[in-house]
């Protein structure tokens, strides 16, 4: 399945819903969209991986890039993921210790001190 990207705003947070396959071919599109959002002023970004059915190292690299960019801009970045195969990928790469990972968008937003209650 091709990559799908949809953005919505929840209070102070920008939620990017990602679907399909994030791999070496499609990851550049995810990177571009994240850069557009950050360059456009988004500071609290939640990426919802709920409809992602494949994620590889290139996709993970893009997510880490966005995390670094937002942190250096004083923002926040969180991921929503509750699928065991994807969670296993985060555990194996130790990226579960780098990203805030939440089972739902609501949980991600309420756990973010920067934007909670906004």
């Amino acid at each position: 399945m091709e990559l799908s990207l949809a953005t919505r705003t929840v209070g102070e947070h920008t939620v990017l819903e990602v679907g399909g396959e994030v791999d070496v071919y499609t990851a550049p599109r995810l990177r571009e969209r994240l850069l557009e959002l950050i360059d456009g002023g988004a500071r609290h970004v939640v990426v919802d991986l709920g409809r992602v059915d494949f994620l590889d190292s290139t996709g993970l690299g893009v997510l880490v890039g966005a995390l670094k960019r937002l942190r250096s801009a004083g923002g926040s970045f969180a991921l929503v993921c509750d699928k065991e195969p994807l969670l296993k990928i985060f555990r194996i790469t130790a990226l579960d210790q780098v990203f805030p990972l939440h089972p739902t968008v609501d949980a991600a937003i309420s756990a973010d001190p920067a934007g909670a209650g906004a």
Partner: protein
Amino acid sequence: MATVKLSFSPAPVHVRTARLVGVAVARRAGVREDLLDEVRLAIGEACTRAVALHRQYGLADPVLVEMSDGGSYAVRVVDRAPIEAGIGLTALPPDELANESLTDEALTTGVGFALLAGFVEDLQVRPVDEGIGTEVRMVWPVGH
């Protein structure tokens, strides 16, 4: 023993094709259903690595993927890049992953190896027997 060979131009768009073929042959060979996600990811990572190396060195040569099912399911992914590759480069520690000085390429390579090493119990990365290049060899059990 049945063998399926696939060779593709080193373009990212073809990596998905290699994953699909790799999983189809794995299923046919009798690899357990619950391992297929790992097969898909590992073949994808090995092919992504090969494509990245070919592009880095400006090589138009195809990447070769060979799948065989003689008692187990073995997949070889062969690149032609002039590097000394080994399995030494495995998981980066978490504090390094988010380090500002780590380049995107280094991060992706490190994460890619971590995934290969984490998902493939029987993994070898070694120079090809003839000529220049590296072979990533992955083996999964078949049957029940």
